[in-house]
């Protein structure tokens, strides 16, 4: 339960830290770390407006998306606390629960009948297809490395003790940072701040959402970012099986977890400040290179486990 509290705390500060970092990097004061949550709160108190061309799909999609993200969140160990839901093969479940949420968002976007949203849905579907192999090759390699197939036991048995296995840790962190950017529609693949619907990927799909629906979508995206942050943070924490069940060690672990989440969000902010986004047709190429990084991890694991 401490784990769940930790991820909610990091989700709470994550978007604000990114925005604040970007503001500072461009010489502005920034609106404050809590601004994204003020926005979500404002939206949550508003009613939703539905176009007459939309059906029930459009109305339920934001809830399903949020439910899917929360569901995926429960499968992760945070700060190496035991996961709430855990079973063999939950790695696959995790990926497809997230996909379910996205699938409904795509349907909802098409439901509006707007040419922009159809275009955005098309891009979102295409790019997530390209991102999937990278995730599975990474998780497959880690499963092979630890000989376990649930997040909980993978992270429990993950030790980076020598050079080879540290290489896995570094590459996996790099990969997860980039995948978080793709999954959450951030730079360099998408630009979350643009007002130009023709260049959007994810944002254009939510053009018709308003009020509580929009609040749910934004809440889901902050959670999603925190989920990727903790996938990375867990690499650097001692597994709970080797922790002496002492409050001091637990507190240390929690602090390290939050610090890593913080560093992750500052890094995202900096990554977004000093570069331009990609041309749309360069995106698939970039996302596919993530798979090749995953393949390097895969071969490293093969070497370590002496399978080749």
């Amino acid at each position, binding site marked *: 339960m401490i784990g769940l509290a930790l991820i909610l705390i990091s989700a709470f500060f994550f978007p604000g830290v990114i925005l604040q970092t*970007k503001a500072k*990097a*461009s*010489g*502005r004061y920034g609106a404050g770390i809590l601004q994204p949550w003020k926005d979500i709160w404002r939206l949550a108190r508003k009613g939703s407006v539905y176009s007459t061309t939309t059906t029930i799909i459009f109305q339920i999609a934001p809830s399903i998306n949020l439910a899917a993200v929360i569901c995926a969140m429960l499968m992760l160990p945070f700060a190496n606390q035991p996961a709430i839901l855990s079973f063999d093969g939950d790695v696959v479940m995790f990926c497809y629960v997230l996909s379910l949420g996205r699938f409904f968002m795509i349907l909802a976007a098409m439901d509006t009948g707007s*040419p*922009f949203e159809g*275009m955005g849905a098309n891009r979102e579907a295409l790019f997530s297809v390209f991102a999937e192999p990278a995730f599975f090759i990474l998780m497959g390699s880690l499963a092979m490395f630890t000989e376990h197939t649930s997040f909980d036991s993978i992270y429990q048995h993950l030790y980076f003790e020598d050079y080879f296995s540290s290489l896995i840790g570094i590459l996996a962190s790099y990969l997860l940072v980039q995948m978080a950017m793709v999954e959450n529609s951030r*730079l*360099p693949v998408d*630009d979350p*701040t*643009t*007002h*130009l*619907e*023709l*260049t959007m990927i994810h944002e254009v799909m939510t053009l018709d959402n308003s009020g509580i629906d929009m609040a749910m979508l934004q809440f889901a995206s902050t959670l999603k970012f925190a989920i990727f942050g903790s996938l990375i943070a867990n690499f650097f924490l001692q597994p709970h099986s080797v922790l002496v069940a002492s409050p001091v060690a637990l507190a240390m672990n929690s602090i390290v977890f939050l610090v890593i989440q913080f560093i992750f969000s500052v890094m995202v902010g900096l990554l*977004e*400040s*000093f*570069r*331009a*986004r*990609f*041309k*749309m*047709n*360069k995106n698939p190429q970039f996302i596919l290179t993530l798979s090749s990084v995953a393949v390097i991890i895969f071969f490293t694991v093969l070497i370590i486990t002496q399978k080749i």
Partner: protein
Amino acid sequence: MIGNAENTIKIRNNETISLHNIPLLPYHKFYDTASALLGQAHYHCVNYYGFPYKNSLHLICAVANDHDRTIEIFSCQIANESGIHLESLTAKHYAMHCYEREIAENFGVVFTNHPWLKPIRYPHDRANKSDTINTYPFYSIAGDQIHEVGVGPVHAGVIEPGHFRFICNGEMVLHLEIQLGWQHRGIEHLFLKKKKLLERTTLAENITGDTAVGHNLAFVSLMESLGNLPARYDKKLGYERALALEMERIGIHVGDLSAMCTDVAFQLGSAVFGALRTPIINYTQLWCGNRFGKGFLRTGGTNYPINEKLISKLQFLFDDFTTKFNEISVYTFNLPSVLSRFEGCGTVTLKQVKLIGAVGMVARMAGMVRDIRHTHPFASYTDIPYKPAVLTTGDVYARGVLRKMEIEKSTLYIQTLKQNVMSLPESPKPVYKVNLAPESFAISLVEGWRGEICHCAITDEDGELAHYKVKEPSLHNWLGLALALRNTEISDFPINNKSFDLSYCGYDL
């Protein structure tokens, strides 16, 4: 035939002539003259419009000669009735398409063999009232793989209204059609309706909000020319006006560079260029009380002559500006992620800009030297020549780098102005009543930051304005944007649109 005194009359920029001196040709002769002139590379049409005069319709054409600083004027008289058929010049010279479309729309003239005879802006006094913006004949392409995306008229950034229709194959744009004419101020009629000079000046400042100095300079030059005021020849006034014009150019160009960075999500460039614009427009405010230079230009003189204090502030401003601007533009135009968005994106070729008769920056980014400051100098450009910067690649990168180069050139030009302006005698004060020459025609060309601005005025027997004509550079250049988008990804539309940064209201008038 060309330059034949019988067919045309040669005048200079900001010159007034009597209406009776403009050769009145039958249409076939008018057509031949225009066609022969436009067939040569150093001639381009700066204005061609219809003007109802004593129960008939006069077509007045002004073709500029880029070699000898002259403008050839000739006219033709046709019956002012709807449905009259004339042979189209556009069929031979595509650049004439917008003028003929405008004449066709306003007076119901049918131009035969015109390849694209579509309404231009649906003004309230158009000839065919049953033709509305909802019945605009869009070009269409049939095919299973083809889809259409319509954007606007309500713009995402809530700027001005314009409808963009993309015909796409997947993410690739095959054709873009830009349909404007959503706002109707009838600004040319307002010039006649408003009788006071100050009212008219305010109108001129608001033809396009971002070119207040450019359009107003064209207006006051016309008034000074028609009224034959001594201010026309005042050197200090000319220098001050050029200074205001270049300040406007720098301000808008820096703002556009910032916006181009925003569109590719390059935050640093967006923030720094954006911050650099502020001191420039604030200087204009310090000078004349308005950041956009409104209030500085007045017929006959100015209320805000430049003084020693302003000159030393100017020195301060540019010492700081130049360093910072160089730093950020070197960083931006060498950053791989920015280059990959800018280079090769939305290319318009030299041939295309020549065909569409592009003016200003859009012409210069693709290798065509077209700059009124250079070919038909006005204000201080007659004394201190300006040599335009020209690039050849015609892509977003060229449009970005050209802005950078023009800012540098303008900065240097301002340095020269600054060194010379204080030794000149004081500029005159404005006048608010001008007696215009009766039955005359005057033309004024100004190189605004967007390009060639052309204003023409005609007076009646009593020396009152009988007709006023405004031509914004955007009239030509919107087609350039449409061409740039061909075989470009639809997601690159915003960056292309921003790199052209054309005017909606200047087109709609």
